[in-house]
């Protein structure tokens, strides 16, 4: 009897329950779920293959160094110039600016929600912050174009309101809900015993939050920031509408920029099918994909590392 039970347990541990009447159904469900999981992996693989098939031919005639370090983006002039350095610079500074604004704002909001706000207020505020994530990006773009741009022109003396600052603000606006929501979850998951112990030792509330709770939730907050950044770098509509679209390396925050997604979105429709310009746009897609993947890997790494520390 005991032996049988033990065998059952071992089978369970291996993921193979003993065959009974319900086990066929279980097996089917397990296969279905497995297939669903395989599907998303398959899609990812297909997208990567497609990106490479359409993007790599760009390098038949174009040296890779010229592609990455070239300063001039004139895809349709004769001869065409495909230097994407200004586009990479545009994407990088826009993402950095947006993160510099959104990370403190998002994390501080999360701290306020978990550590300070009374739970009734928290219940009201959290859905609203998450609702912010539901605003379509085209609406945020329109807001930046019609409301923020004139303000930057009239009160800040910018030559054009469609610039780096405007794009950074709008992207920050979009990534705050992601950063706040994920950080809040991880702060909330910090065991109350930690706080209580800290307070019992005579630490103030601020010391507890800063020295105990935040470090304990570090991995979650790190993941939140990376997710927010990958959202910023991949966002297309907003930068297409408010970044200005000039392929230059920005020197001031009032300079217009042309981030990579904006260039792809603006030009792909008119680029001759499977011409050089078309291939180069897909190559930019590969670069963009590499950046987002990098952010995600870093996020994963932070989570893994901290889990090990916690264990």
């Amino acid at each position, binding site marked *: 009897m005991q032996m049988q039970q033990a065998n059952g347990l071992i089978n369970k541990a291996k993921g193979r329950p003993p065959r009974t009447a319900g086990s066929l159904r279980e097996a089917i469900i397990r296969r279905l779920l497995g297939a669903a999981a395989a599907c998303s992996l398959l899609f990812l693989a297909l997208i990567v293959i497609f990106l490479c098939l359409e993007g790599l031919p760009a390098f038949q005639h174009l040296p890779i160094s010229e592609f990455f370090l070239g300063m001039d983006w004139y895809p349709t002039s004769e001869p065409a110039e495909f230097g994407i350095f200004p586009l990479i610079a545009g994407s990088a500074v826009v993402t950095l600016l947006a993160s510099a604004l959104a990370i403190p704002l998002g994390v501080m909001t999360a701290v306020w929600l978990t550590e300070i706000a009374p739970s009734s207020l928290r219940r009201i505020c959290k859905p609203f912050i998450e609702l912010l994530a539901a605003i379509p990006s085209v609406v945020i773009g329109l807001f930046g174009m019609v409301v923020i741009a004139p303000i930057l*022109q009239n009160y800040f003396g910018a030559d054009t309101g469609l610039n780096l600052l405007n794009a950074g603000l709008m992207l920050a606006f979009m990534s705050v809900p992601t950063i706040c929501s994920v950080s809040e979850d991880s702060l909330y998951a910090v065991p109350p015993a930690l706080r209580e112990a800290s307070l019992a030792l005579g630490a103030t509330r601020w010391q507890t939050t800063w020295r105990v709770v935040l470090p304990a939730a570090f991995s979650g907050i790190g993941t939140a920031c990376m997710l927010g950044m990958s959202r910023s770098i991949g966002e297309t509509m907003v930068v297409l509408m408010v970044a200005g679209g000039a*392929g230059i390396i920005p020197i001031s925050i009032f300079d217009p920029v042309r981030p990579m997604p904006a260039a792809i979105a603006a030009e792909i429709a008119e680029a001759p099918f499977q011409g050089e310009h078309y291939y180069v746009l897909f190559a930019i897609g590969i670069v963009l994909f590499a950046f987002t993947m990098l952010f995600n890997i870093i996020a994963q790494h932070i989570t893994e590392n901290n889990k090990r520390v916690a264990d």
Partner: protein
Amino acid sequence: MLKRLLFVCMFCLLGSGAFAQAAAAEEVIVSGSTTVLPVMQVAGEAFMAANPDVTLSISGGGSGNGIKALNEGLCAVAMSSRDIKESELAEGKANGINATRFAIAVDALLPIVNPENPIRDLSAQQLRDIYSGKISNWKELGGKDENIVVISRDTSSGTYETWAELIMKGEKIQARALLQTSNGAVSQIVSTNSKAIGYIGLGYLNDSIVALTMEGKVGNAETALNKSWPLSRELYVFTNGEPKDGVKKLIDYLLDPRKGQKAVLESGYVPISK
């Protein structure tokens, strides 16, 4: 991309419909200039609805590619935003193809500024210097002491191509120019920024912006048609010899003031026959 996808879907639908009606539907392949493409897209849809026996297959690719395809017998109608070159004509003759020209519309651009800007007239040379970056302050043109904010269209658009050809004449538009995806966006930006200059198709002029004159010449439909406006050019389609059957139907449709010429107006160009 989306546009292209939509097109594929549209043609699949239309194609399958045509097969159901008559297996002998004639297919006319149209290819060439992206400047003429919007006209052909709008007119083509209505044309196919009116002529179920003819199916159009329309693609872009540029004027040069369109004429090349006509010369190689790969398309029946080539769209072009420029006249055919001698070399291209000869190349066609060698293949037994006799390219015949039909002007279907006039494309005219207007340089525009904000109503608050005192500047009202610029020369082609001044426009070129502004766009290439040689002139960067309105003061140099007799205006306020303000930086010039240059607005241009995306490098892939037909409007950009026209501007590059008629104004820039081989010089590059400066990298600082704000590249916008539509005539509407250019006009919106210029209407809200007193330092901005832009250019739009004649059909997109509205009250919130001011069209510049060029050395006293005013750009409008009339001056575009009589070719006195320097920023205008004719848009053509080329066929092999005198058009017949489906091709003739299409050309007649395009030139009909109540049909194809309406599509010309809708696309922001100047109709050639009234």
